Each structure stands twice: as C-alpha cells, then as structure tokens.
C-alpha cells in the first residue's frame, strides 16, 4: 500500500446499515481509529472511493444482485484482508429467507413491473463468492467486537474467535435463565456469544441473531423447544430467521419443518 497508515474501506451490500452503525456509534474510539487508519471509503460516514486499494475491507450486507457479484470481486482484488460484519454478510441475512421461496413468483406477486427487478434467486453470504479472511457474526455486530477485530488486525494477528454459547456469557453476568425460570424458548444454548447475553439480560429469550455457536446440538434444542409448547413450524421459525443461511440453523429449521 502506498499509504503511511493502514487503509480501510467499509462497503455496503444488501443490508439495513445497522452494522455500519456499530462502527459509527463507537464515539471516542472512532476518533482514535480515524487517527490510526485512513478510512478511504465509508459512504455512510462520508468518504467515497469505491475502488480504493485498502489493507482491510469491511463488508456489510449479502450478495443479492448480479451487480453485487461484480462489485465484491473488485473489492477482493483491491483489498489485502476482507472482513465481513453481521448476519447478512456472514450468512445471507434475514433476506436469505427468500432462498426457500420461489423468487420469480413473489416478485411477480408484488411488483407492478417485475422485469425491472434484477434480483438473484438467492441472497448469499460474501464467502460464497470470494475468499473471506475474517467473519464477525451478529445482527448487528457489537461495537466491542469490531474494535477488538480491527485492533487485532492492526497488530497483525487474527482476533480470537468467540464461538461459545450465549449461556456462558449469560451465566457470567449472573442473569437468571429465562428458559429454566420462565419457560421462554431461548436459543442461547445453540447461539454464538458476542452480544453479552443482551436479550436474556432484559428478561427475554435469545432469538439467535449471532448465528450458530460451535458444536451446536440443534436437534436437542428443537426437542426442548417442542417441550416448551412450540409446534414444529414454530420451532423451524426459531432456526429459520435472522441466520437461516447459516448451515446448522438451516439444516435444523428444514428438518423441523419437514417433520411436521
């Protein structure tokens, strides 16, 4: 790179911008970061240079149009490291729910002039198209995660992967288990940590927005959810939601749905 400071770009694909907000909401840390790196492209924050050559490209959003495919390949060529942030970029996002529907059919049902919609059949994760060096899960990712990932990359190492179940963090925070004490259909035991057990901390069930943890026993989880009174279709929807494109959740969701 010709820059004195490491160069960073933040690119957006199909997404709600919430993960970029996790960066923008850093507050003072964002000022620190901007003094340490050159942010060459970050449309939501100001700088626009889509084709800039960078050390780290941060990608939000999933691939859902042919233009997206062309653009993500260009970004890969222009970037030393590619890091995806959030459920969309890492697993296809909420919009990957359409992967299980007939795309042409629903486009025809909704739009007056379906011919102008140039959508791919499926919404897919960035890694389905290019090599990805690092993935951060979450919907949205947490600011803390982004800071520690960027910090590690600037040190020249990969950040430690956080793949424990949400329960570990929940218990460290001494939160009363919402599943055991309130019969809430909590996805914590199969979901990746990183959020700080946010939902259980306010008394509600985890809905799996950080995607599958390592070694998730989704079938036992599904059985337990049925035991709590959910019918199989409701169980399927617990898995086929924010991270329906994540393999472990997808497989279980389809299994629970087909078992009905």
């Amino acid at each position: 790179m010709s820059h004195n400071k490491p160069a960073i770009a933040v690119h957006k694909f199909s997404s709600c911008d919430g993960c970029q907000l996790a960066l923008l909401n850093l507050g003072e840390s964002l000022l620190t970061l901007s003094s340490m790196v050159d942010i060459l492209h970050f449309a939501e924050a100001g700088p626009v240079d889509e084709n800039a050559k960078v050390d780290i490209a941060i990608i939000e959003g999933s691939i859902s149009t042919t233009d997206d495919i062309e653009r993500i390949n260009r970004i890969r060529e222009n970037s030393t490291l590619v890091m995806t942030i959030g459920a969309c970029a890492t697993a296809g996002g909420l919009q990957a729910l359409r992967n299980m529907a007939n795309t042409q059919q629903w486009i025809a049902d909704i739009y007056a002039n379906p011919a102008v919609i140039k959508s791919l059949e499926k919404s897919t994760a960035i890694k389905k198209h290019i090599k990805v060096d690092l993935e951060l899960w979450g919907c949205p990712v947490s600011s803390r995660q982004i800071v520690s990932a960027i910090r590690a990359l600037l040190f020249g190492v990969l950040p430690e992967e956080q793949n424990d179940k949400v329960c570990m963090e929940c218990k460290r925070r001494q939160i009363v288990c919402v599943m055991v004490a309130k019969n809430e259909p909590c996805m914590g035991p199969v979901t990746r940590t990183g959020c700080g057990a946010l939902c259980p901390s306010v008394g509600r069930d985890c809905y799996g927005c950080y995607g599958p943890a390592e070694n998730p026993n989704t079938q036992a989880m599904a059985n337990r959810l049925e035991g709590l009174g959910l019918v199989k279709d409701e169980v399927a929807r617990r898995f086929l939601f924010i991270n329906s494109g994540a393999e472990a959740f997808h497989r279980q969701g389809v299994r629970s749905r087909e078992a009905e």
Partner: protein
Amino acid sequence: MNMEQYYFQTDQLQWLLDNLLDEGYRCVGPQVRDGAIMYDELSRVEQLPRGMTETQAPGSYSLKKHASQKYFDWANGPQAIKPLLFAPQEKLWQSAQAADGQISFNTAGPELKPVAIIGARACDIAAMKLQDQHFLQQQYSDPFYKSRRENLLIIAVNCGHPAATCFCHSTGDGPFVEDDEAAADMVLTELEHGFLIAAYTDRGEKILEGLALDGCNQQHLDESASIKARSSIQDKQLPQFDIRSSLLKELDNKAWDSIAETCLSCGNCTSVCPTCFCHSENDVPELDGKSSSHFREWDSCFSQGHSYIHGITIRSNTSQRYRQWLTHKFSTWHDQYGRSGCVGCGRCVTWCPVGIDVIESLAKFGGDAS
C-alpha cells in the same frame, strides 16, 4: 454442633443486619429477582424472600408464595458463595507502553471492603471448602480469591427446605452445617417463631456480642432437630455403587454418546456448579495499542476453548466433554482434592436447559450394581 446456640425472635432479624452494617460489612443476601432467588446487596429484612418458596425439577425452577412466613424456607437458586469469591469475570493485570517504549505491568487489586453473606447453605459451605483447596491450599495461592475470602463473613442458614433436585444428604454435605473447620462464621437455624444462632469464629462471636440474645431452650433444640430430620429425607441420592472407580472403567461406554444426544454442551451446569473452578484468560487491548488489560473469566469443560491446545481441540464432541465433566467431578477429583467434587446441591440438574439429571447419568455407569 457443639457451639453454644442462642435464640432470638423472628422480628429481631433486622438487628443482625444492622449490626453487620455498623461493623462496616457490605451485606449480600437472598432476594427475589427475575423469577428466582438471587444474592444481591442487602440492608433491610424486607428485601429477603419471606414467605416465598420454589419448586425445582430437572430443567425447571418456579417461585411461588408459601403458607409459611419464614425468611429462608426455600432451596438454593443458581448462585450463592461462588460468584462472590471466584468472580465470573475480573481484570488480573494491565500493561501499558510509555512514550519511551518502556512497558509496565500493574496488578489489578480486588476490592477489599468486608462482605457478609447471609443465607448460604451447608452445600455451599462444603463447596467453598473445595474452592479454598483449589485456590488457596496449593503451591501458589490465588491473591484475588484470597483477598475476597479473607474479607468474607459467612452467616450460613441450615436448610429447612431441600428441593426435589437436592441430594446433599447422600454426599454428606447437608442439610445442616456440620462445620468442624469453622468455614462459616455463624450459623442460623430458622424456627417457627425465631432463630437459633451460633458463632463458629471470633469474627462471628464479635457480631453475636452486639446482639441482645437469649439462651435457647430444649423446645428450640427439639424443633431444630426435627427440621434437620425432615430435611435429611431427600428423594434424590447418589447411586450406591463405587462411582469413583466405576466411571473410569466405563470410558468407552456407549452411554456417553446417548447422553450427548440430549446435552446442549452449553456450560450451564458448570457455571452454576459451586465447585467448578475452570477459567480462561484473555487480553483486551485498547484501540490505540498502547495499553492492554488481562482478564480471567469462567470457562467450562463444555466449551471448545477448554481443550484447545495448539491447533487441536482435544475434546471436539459433546460425548467427550460430558465424560470429562462427570469423570473429573466424581472420579479424578478424589485424586486432586481427597473427595468427590459434588456437594449435592442439585443446581446442575435444575439449571440444565434440557433437564439432564446427573444422578440418572451416573446410574448408567454402575454396571450390574446399578
């Protein structure tokens, strides 16, 4: 119990709290929070879960009102002493790089204010003794645990209400505190209209001296004995075979796999276990890269990181992780600490999201004896 017992009326319990606060203790005691009995900051008896009780079953816990107006007529919630001594997450040290490149390291000292915990049960005292062994009585003692332990005054309460998940009587750790080593400073027994109280240590004695107490009479002692007899009758008990040696002979038993089909490998059991002491350590550098904090936090043998060694996860599947937990807790713990690591509190049974019952798991490995 040989210590002299005194008696005071139920409505005088606030005296005890006031006395502790006057002596400079921060009081921590049981309170209803988010549908369970949890330990939080305490200054008034009104905060205690009076007239409350709970029902526990594998994977299930529910609070309800009780006919009795006792303060402590309930069995343990998910916590008691462990989080106070072995912090779920804490900073151990910080490092910083000065402008001239010099790197300095500073230990993060734990808080030193004396804490008094009220309500811990016999099982919790037994568990704390095991944690003392682990953190204090080995070649190197842990300064963080040590400092908090020295500053902790324990007012235990004899258990008058074991849950359906409890089996302390069969592990020999309850329901009453039989405290030869004086790990608890004071022990309370709640009777129908008052409390028996005894001091086991000088610190406990000092608090007792500040209270205007009556001696107890035979009727009080009889009532206490009948509570103990009643609490000792527990539905659940350890299987009768030699668990320690049997488990190690059954390492290839298919039953580990069948348990793993149900187990979520989520770490709830080890987190609520009052004797589990595993932790991980990690560094959290500041964004500017000039300073960094080193943290310790609760880990679990059910996590991937627990058995990760240089590129290899030794126990990659749930069957191996559950086996590690059970064989350590009930077999190899004996080699390390001279007894089993289970005190019969039943927390792992209640707080397992899928209700895996450790007693039922053990029974699978008893061969013909089971």
